[in-house]
């Protein structure tokens, strides 16, 4: 590669990195500034004191972020466990049993994957309401479990790569179908489960519309809705909003740095299905 081309390549990469990082970095600057400092200095000026955590404390208490993280974690854990259980069971039946209407069921899952969730909320809301789940964490949990077709795909595809001879061997040893699922299939499914947990986990952590619509009570704030509440009353205090935004972003940064490889693989597997 010529010198010019190489320079252009690195210049474009650096420029793109600046465009990605600058909006985040200036907000990080703002989150460490005092109110007086914020109004006095430009947004590109770093904070005078990098250990000024006052805004973080204000944001954490005013936004009741502890509750937000608690609710998010609760919903995350329950809906992930549910998705994995429901999805692997269905995938087990579909890939290992012959039964009537199997193709029809597969077709139902396939078509449902095309229905964008935002379009049906008008009607879904009435159903969730009639079940009495509005303003409970269960609304988000059942919706996260019930609208997830991608994970069933991932499970089915992965299960097809597990040789059926393993099932048969266990069956000869007298294992019941459920024991085979529990003891043979499920442990072998770990990579697929990891993929689903990662892509679904990120989606649930970031979800805004469902908690915003179904969990209006302040006790039920998840991190997205807790952060969103800063928009009105704190409009003039950007340093507090900045700190709260950082509180929401930091866990994502940590998870990304720790699980990079799995995240890339999970995203690729999930999106191309």
């Amino acid at each position: 590669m010529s010198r010019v081309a190489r320079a252009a390549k690195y210049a474009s990469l650096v420029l793109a990195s600046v465009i990605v990082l600058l909006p985040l970095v200036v907000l990080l600057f703002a989150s460490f500034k005092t109110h007086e400092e914020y109004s006095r200095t430009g947004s590109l000026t770093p904070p005078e004191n990098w250990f000024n955590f006052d805004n973080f404390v204000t944001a954490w208490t005013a936004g009741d972020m502890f509750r937000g993280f608690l609710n998010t974690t609760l919903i995350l854990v329950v809906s992930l466990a549910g998705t994995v259980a429901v999805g692997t069971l269905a995938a087990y039946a579909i890939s290992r049993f012959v039964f009537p209407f199997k193709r029809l069921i597969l077709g139902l899952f396939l078509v449902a994957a095309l229905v964008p969730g935002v379009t049906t909320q008008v009607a879904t809301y009435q159903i969730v309401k009639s079940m009495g789940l509005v303003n409970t964490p269960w609304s988000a949990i059942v919706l996260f479990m019930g609208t997830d077709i991608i994970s069933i795909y991932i499970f089915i595809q992965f299960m097809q790569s597990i040789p059926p001879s393993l099932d048969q061997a266990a069956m000869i040893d007298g294992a019941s179908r459920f024991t085979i699922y529990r003891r043979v299939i499920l442990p072998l499914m770990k990579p697929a489960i990891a993929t689903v947990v990662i892509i679904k986990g990120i989606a649930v952590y970031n979800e805004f519309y469902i908690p915003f619509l179904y969990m209006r009570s302040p006790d039920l704030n998840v991190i997205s809705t807790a952060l969103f509440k800063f928009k009105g009353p704190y409009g003039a205090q950007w340093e507090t909003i900045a700190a709260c935004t950082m509180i929401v972003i930091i866990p994502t940064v940590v998870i990304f740095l720790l699980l990079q490889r799995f995240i890339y693989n999970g995203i690729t597997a999930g999106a191309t299905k």
Partner: protein
Amino acid sequence: MTSQLVEVRPAVTAGRRRRRPKFKHYPWLYVAPALILLLTFTYVPVGNMLFYSFHKWDGLDVTMDPVGFGNYVKVFTDERYWRVFLISLYYFAASFAQIAIALYFAVVLSFETRFRNLFKGILFFPYLLNGVAVGFVFLYLFQPDGTLDTVLRLVGLGEHTKLWLGDPDVANLSLAGTSVWRFTGLNFVLFLGAIQSIPGEIYEAAEIDGANRWHQFWHIIAPGIRRIISLSFILAISGSLSVFEIPFIMTSGANGTRTFVIQAYETAFQFRQIGLASAMAVVLLLLVLLVTWIQRRVLPDEEVNLS
């Protein structure tokens, strides 16, 4: 729900005849939870939505007034409702930029590059961020005399500063730009993955034959990732029709940035016109299904093989 379960029963007995008696009822038990969730939260809503769309209903009243196609007529004739479709065009145009940028960086980083993983991580990272956080990051960036204005002045483009979110002529461009910032990373990682799944020997063979980078791109990389690129365009169409989070969080649909989903949300949950909102949702759903159907015709799917 009960009606579906009743219908299912005869199938169980049919299965009983064919399979060894010991495992007769199992498959249905395993599929039931997923199927019940699927029917309750996807198919029943779609059915109800169709039903609501032919009625005038506030969501609370026990009676609904049938209005025939009245709601649909309103969606297509009342400017407030069909105009929001046009806003999708901004996001659709932006997705071309997004795919082009993603493709450029995927190709660049598929060759030997210093700090490759660092650049890959930086480019991909925004996709993982919380939508509300992204909204706030860009609200801050676009503030009058905020970061963007400061940077423009710094590089001598001071006269181009605008009310990025306040001026209806630019607001949609700013929001579409935010959406590009947020989603380019996804396309980029998908393209990169597709490029890297092309076996390395092919490049080596090409290099021996004297192919330069451009030839390699055009004859090896491009055919290898054609499918994922077409898929990205299809997703871009349905994605730009159903934009919600970014404009809702950043401008609440003010200054001419109201999208179709924001309009449907307000119609349903603020003005309690469930019938009209359902008609909007049905139109959107049909559009998305149409686009997907065209995709299946144009681009036969070789990967989905589940039976």
